[in-house]
């Protein structure tokens, strides 16, 4: 039996300093594309970063629109 509770960590739009990892899926194919990481213990504004698929040929426009919230903080 699973109950879904609406906690503050489930609303990333409310506070960008809350972690995204509560919403992340664990079974993903890492060989697909850009990888998005998170470490809330890092310094401010360094908490989330992207590892692009192709090194040396990356551009921030390669980030998909669904992941813009990770870069900007509020979507």
């Amino acid at each position, binding site marked *: 039996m699973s109950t879904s509770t609406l906690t503050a960590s489930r609303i990333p739009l409310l506070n960008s300093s809350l972690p995204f990892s509560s919403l992340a899926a664990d079974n993903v194919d890492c060989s*697909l594309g850009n990888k998005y*990481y998170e470490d809330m213990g890092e310094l401010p504004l360094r908490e989330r970063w992207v590892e692009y698929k192709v090194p040396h040929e990356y551009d921030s426009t390669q980030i998909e629109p669904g992941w813009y919230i990770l870069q900007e903080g509020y979507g």
Partner: protein
Amino acid sequence: MSHDCGLGFFVELTWPESDLARHSTVGIIIHSVRGSLTTMALRQLRVIPRAVPSAVRYYASNVPVKAAPPGTMGDPEPTKSADIIHPPLGPGYRSQGTSIGRTIRNIWKAGWRRAFWQIKEMNDTKAGTLIGVDKYTHRIPHPSP
């Protein structure tokens, strides 16, 4: 004419640990440089060893040191919104150490091989949680030749 005899009268008064915004104290610094231009130049060129500092500093103030009342800009009271945006250290948050500390910690967590790759590619060492992978479809294709 002042001459550097090597045995100067040196006054050093230490200023207390003060924040100007907190105490709002006026400080007056008077520099008195002893010695001629030749002596200064020789001292600058390290011909004369600078055993005794030649600058005499006087710190003076006619305003007594006074702490700011709480609730003002000098001594602000923390608000709840600041605690919400920047929460205090808890079990979920580590202390944000220095850069070398973060580097060593991330090398330790990520491993030497991945740390070298990260320094080469992104000029930093990072270790965190993989929260997602996209499909790499939002890109402009290379122009055809």
